[in-house]
């Protein structure tokens, strides 16, 4: 029962967020000739979930600061073509061009955050 209640609340939040983004995008996509936004510009809509610099403070939203740019581009494209399903992200990527996805991926890859686990370091412990 408690789990059901939690699920309903989380779903409401997700749907509310996604639909507000979706309506903004419908408006923006009418400006087809607009130049691609820079990574920093695109990133403004990521802050609410992924944090100021991509180091999200909320545990169920991934940290993306310092993540590989090509991995993030792959993730964004997967959300766009429906391979990866997430209501919030689907709404976000709908209005982004490939160039904008590349730009925002490069922007977050440049931030300080995630690291690679180094096997050599680990084996010394």
């Amino acid at each position, binding site marked *: 029962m408690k789990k059901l209640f*939690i699920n309903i*609340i*989380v779903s*409401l*939040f997700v749907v*509310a967020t996604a639909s507000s983004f979706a309506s903004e995008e419908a408006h923006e996509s009418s400006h087809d000739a607009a130049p691609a936004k820079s990574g920093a510009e695109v990133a403004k809509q990521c802050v609410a979930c992924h944090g100021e610099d991509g180091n*999200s403070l*909320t*545990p*169920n*939203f*991934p*940290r993306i600061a*310092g*993540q*590989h740019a*090509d*991995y993030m*581009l*792959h993730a964004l494209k997967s959300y766009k073509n429906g*391979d*990866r*399903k997430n209501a919030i992200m689907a709404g976000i990527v709908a209005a982004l061009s490939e160039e904008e996805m590349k730009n925002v991926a490069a922007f977050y890859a440049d931030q300080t*955050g*995630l*690291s*690679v*686990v*180094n*096997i050599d370091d*680990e084996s010394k412990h």
Partner: protein
Amino acid sequence: MRLLLRTTSLIIALGLFASSASFAAGNVEQGKLKAETCLGCHGVPSYTNVYPTYHVPRLGGQHADYIVAALKGYQSGERSHGTMQAQSSGMSEEDMADIGAYFQSLQ
């Protein structure tokens, strides 16, 4: 409008509270043992996936809850990736929580 804003904030706050309480904390030491296989790909700097080619994601410092959610997504088939689906197929919730706790501990 003001009421809408207030209601939305309340829903967001409740959602965040609910989600932060929804996963049991994993054991870092256990996770370190269980994550050994993961490091075959996630522990090699500049290691890449193929078809399509992209760097295997960095997981050091990633949120445990997100790692658990990702593993569950692969296990259920909601998220597609052959290797990750195979890796997650035999994992219990506890395994996932332990592995998540381990990666989160590597800041």
